[in-house]
């Protein structure tokens, strides 16, 4: 509460810079921060990735365990996506049960993966109605400097791409790898005083009226959208953001996800 005045100062700072055609870190409006992606870095996880988006750092671990299927889908494995905003990552994060921010983060990443059919859940069935693979995707935020969704979504798909199925741990035989059918990429943009800015920093997120995450697939189709923020948006702005999101996703995919599998 006591820092409210500082919030306003920061918001004004961001707005003033934008009105002069500049961003706080000198980037172009449609430019991402430097992205680095490291795969397979945690050997206890069946798949993992660490994404750095400028100073934002997110770790994603995939674990596979044997469990029971849901009664209404006995021939399908289960995908569970979870996000933890641990207090280590930001002065604004508090320990405790998941709040609406972490739930939204997890659900948006999950939606992108489901919408594009990245994982064939039928392939995760071991024994119909009895045994299936439960695939946990855990998003662990290490340093929040804005745009967690894009970092987490990139980490999630990268972690899925290098999964090793722990068959021997459960006395099973089967494929060692998991087929990953698509490469959804999330691109988040904010609208600040009518200007669209890609890959927002924390200050830009706070100064923004609205935020839109556009998740698109290799064929350019959409697999998820989520608007955040307490302001209205014009149709033209949304359509422009969707176009821009698809374009930017293509660039990221080209650079980080088109690996021979």
């Amino acid at each position: 509460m006591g820092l409210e005045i500082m919030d306003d100062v920061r918001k004004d700072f961001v707005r003033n810079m934008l009105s002069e055609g500049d961003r706080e870190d000198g980037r172009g409006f449609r430019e991402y921060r430097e992205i680095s992606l490291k795969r397979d870095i945690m050997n206890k996880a069946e798949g993992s990735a660490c994404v750095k988006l400028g100073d934002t750092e997110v770790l994603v671990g995939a674990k596979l365990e044997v469990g029971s299927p849901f009664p209404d889908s006995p021939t399908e494995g289960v995908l569970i996506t979870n996000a933890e905003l641990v207090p280590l990552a930001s002065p604004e994060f508090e320990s405790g049960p998941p709040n609406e921010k972490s739930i939204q983060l997890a659900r948006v990443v999950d939606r992108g993966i489901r919408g594009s059919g990245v994982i064939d859940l039928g392939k995760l069935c071991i024994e119909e109605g009895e045994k299936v693979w439960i695939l946990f995707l855990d998003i662990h935020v290490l340093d929040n400097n804005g745009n967690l969704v894009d970092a987490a979504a990139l980490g999630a798909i990268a972690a899925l791409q290098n999964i090793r199925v722990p068959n021997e741990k459960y006395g099973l035989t089967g494929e060692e790898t998991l087929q990953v059918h698509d490469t959804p990429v999330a691109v988040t943009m904010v609208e600040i005083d009518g200007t669209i800015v890609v890959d927002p920093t924390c200050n830009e997120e706070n100064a923004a009226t609205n935020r839109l995450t556009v998740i698109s697939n290799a064929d350019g189709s959409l697999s998820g959208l989520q608007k955040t923020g307490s302001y209205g948006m014009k149709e033209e702005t949304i359509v422009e953001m969707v176009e821009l999101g698809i374009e930017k996703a293509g660039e990221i995919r080209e650079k980080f996800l088109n690996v021979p599998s």
Partner: protein
Amino acid sequence: MKKEGEIEFIKDGKRVDGRSFDELRNIKIDVGVLKRADGSCYFELGNNKVLAAVYGPREMHPRHAQDAKMAVVKFRYNMAPFSVDDRKRPGPDRRSVEISKVSREALDPVILREYYPKAAIEVYVEILQSDAGTRTAGINAASVALADAGVPMRDLVSSVAVGKVGGEIVLDLNAVEDNYGEADMPIAMIARRNTITALQMDGNLTKDEFEKGLKLAMKACQQIYELQRTALIGRYNKGESAKLKDSGT
């Protein structure tokens, strides 16, 4: 989304429930249905039955969550355990937490929150019977309940979902279409200003399908707005005539 090859979603240009592609389900709106709440609304959308109540503006608890500049809107979307086929465990789950957030943000833009610093405006939505599209019904009901409570607002918010089933972009998905269709995109908007206040999408759509769906949803919100407006005017007229009688004129 689940794949279901067997269902024939579109037959002779009609959908499984006989509607055309751009047709809403039946909507019924009752205003001021609850005595204790400051404002309330009962909203039916096809087989969805939704109740919204508004309390406040009143003091915000906990106090550390107060905003010194404007009222905080609290929105709770809750499903009754008997509202779905398989009993829903009572209490908030991840889905309802996300829907509550999105719904709150859909309404925030129209509420003149700066009139009531440090206060809370509480919106409670109960899904009594669910048949796809509950979040949109909840937003529609909440918007009317806010107006019924006399909360100062710039305008009403109207909400509807569009989706893709059997390769077609259709309006206001029913439960079968939602469960087995290819995409679902709920939106909320301030109809008179063509301003979108909520947008979500899951499933799979091409960019052109998205734009077509957005247009379809925006058009339908205009229809819903008219129904909301009519329901509120009906309530206001009733109140007025009663008052006139009291004063003997």
